[in-house]
């Protein structure tokens, strides 16, 4: 709170500042409500002081307004498609008992996280910092399920549909696809468990796709149907939605079967970091040690260094990296200094093991994706 911004992140539009409020969905703590229907709620900054984001504070993002309460007694997962040898159906128990169970800690971040900070503003959900979370996901490998059904050599993409749908039939259903190599990656999971609890309804109960390293758009919730395809999937949510202009971002993962001449699907997350404490505009005690802390993350290459500046970017010092929950997790960091009285401009910049770092200015793109400039806050010591 504070700073006259209400619950929202400083820098979002005046309309967002006036409209957004803290609202609790059933089973959730109050989150920053950006839209009621479809529900789009972001996690307030304070929850990122924990490396694992609590389930009841985990952000909620839906494209379509009808989100059925799934009855797991009748729910089934269908696995099929023209590039699969034998179609199959699974109950949740059959999935749990039929395949090796694995766990992974991974960041789930919306492609448009921080879109609301773009200048000039671009249309879409006006997210601040909180369209992301980090959780320990438990499930089975998608690869194991697909291998059992027999993936044909002509398999090109795998598409995923959930039980959520639009209010009117003309709206394209939310269906996403992955390139076959990413679907068969050992880290791509079908998960029913989040931080040791059953998946919350708002986060995809009873089963969701977990694609560590890639943006949240691929993490399809309330999964019902998986199709292995020999042809590119042509749905709206693959093209023209969720596209990046070619050549602007130094990304590693390619999705060639979906690439067009000028644009390509968004793939993995870019390196990023966040100061969780102190908050922007905070008043702190002068001449006493102050801990600046936060988190850093990327697509799973892992953190090399997190550097902090307390003089507006003139000089940088390495922060201490904290607990390592795996390369796809938030990595906590902290930095101590003794502020003299007056205003201090504090900045943070993460660099991953590929040497990728955060730009000083966001890279403009039509939908405001991959917003990862060096974060700057001001604090006053007295």
């Amino acid at each position, binding site marked *: 709170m504070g700073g006259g911004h209400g619950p929202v992140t400083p820098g979002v*539009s*005046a*309309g*967002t500042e*006036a*409209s*957004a409020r803290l*609202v609790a969905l059933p089973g959730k703590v109050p989150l920053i*409500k*950006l*839209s*009621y*229907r*479809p*529900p789009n709620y972001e996690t307030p900054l304070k929850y990122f002081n924990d490396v694992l984001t609590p389930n009841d504070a985990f952000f909620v993002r839906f494209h379509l*307004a*009808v989100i059925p309460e799934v009855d797991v007694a009748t729910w089934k997962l269908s696995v099929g498609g023209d590039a699969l040898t034998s179609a199959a159906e699974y109950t949740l128990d059959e999935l749990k008992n039929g395949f090796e169970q694995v766990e992974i800690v991974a960041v789930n971040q919306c492609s448009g996280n921080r879109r*609301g900070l773009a200048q*000039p*503003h671009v*249309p*879409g*959900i*006006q997210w601040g910092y909180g369209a992301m979370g980090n959780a320990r996901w438990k499930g089975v490998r998608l690869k194991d399920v697909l291998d059992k059904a027999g993936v044909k050599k002509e398999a090109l993409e795998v598409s995923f549909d959930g039980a959520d749908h*639009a*209010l*009117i*039939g*003309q*709206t*394209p259903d939310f269906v996403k696809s992955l390139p076959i190599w990413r679907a068969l990656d050992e880290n791509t999971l079908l998960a029913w468990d989040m931080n040791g609890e059953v998946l919350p309804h708002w986060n995809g109960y009873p089963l969701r796709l977990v694609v560590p390293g890639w943006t949240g758009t691929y993490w399809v919730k309330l999964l019902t149907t998986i199709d292995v395809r020999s042809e590119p999937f042509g749905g*709206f949510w693959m093209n*023209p939605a969720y596209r990046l202009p070619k050549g602007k971002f130094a990304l590693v993962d390619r999705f060639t079967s979906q690439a067009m001449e000028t644009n390509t699907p968004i793939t993995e997350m870019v390196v990023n970091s966040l100061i969780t404490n102190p908050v922007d505009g905070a008043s702190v005690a002068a001449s006493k040690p102050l801990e600046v802390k936060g988190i850093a993350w990327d697509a799973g290459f892992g953190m090399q260094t997190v550097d902090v500046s307390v003089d507006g970017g003139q000089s940088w010092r390495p922060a201490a990296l904290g607990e390592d929950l795996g390369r796809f997790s938030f990595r906590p960091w902290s930095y101590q200094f003794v502020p003299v009285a007056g205003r201090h401009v504090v900045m943070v910049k993460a660099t991953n093991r590929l040497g990728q770092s955060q730009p000083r200015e966001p890279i403009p793109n039509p939908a405001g994706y991959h917003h990862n400039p060096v974060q700057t806050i001001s604090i006053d010591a007295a």
Partner: protein
Amino acid sequence: MRALMLLAALLIAAPAAAGEQDIVLKEGQGRDLVAANCQICHSLDYIEINSPFLDQKQWEGTVTKMIERYGAPIDPANVPAIVTYLSTNYGSQGTP
């Protein structure tokens, strides 16, 4: 007839989410038309948060996207009035 079709569309829609009925769009010509059409598919806070930074042309593009990409059942005859209300009250060149 148009009003009846609109009413039918509203009736088949799922009930509004708790809380969204408290959203009050700014007073102005075309407000009821905008409210009736836009909330067939989504709550009206979508308009509020996407303000005030789109100009008339961008609001027109947004309304067109809703019709062409998302299948919004908006009568083409109502589009100019909807765009005028949005750009006047929620646009970068609006006066309020």
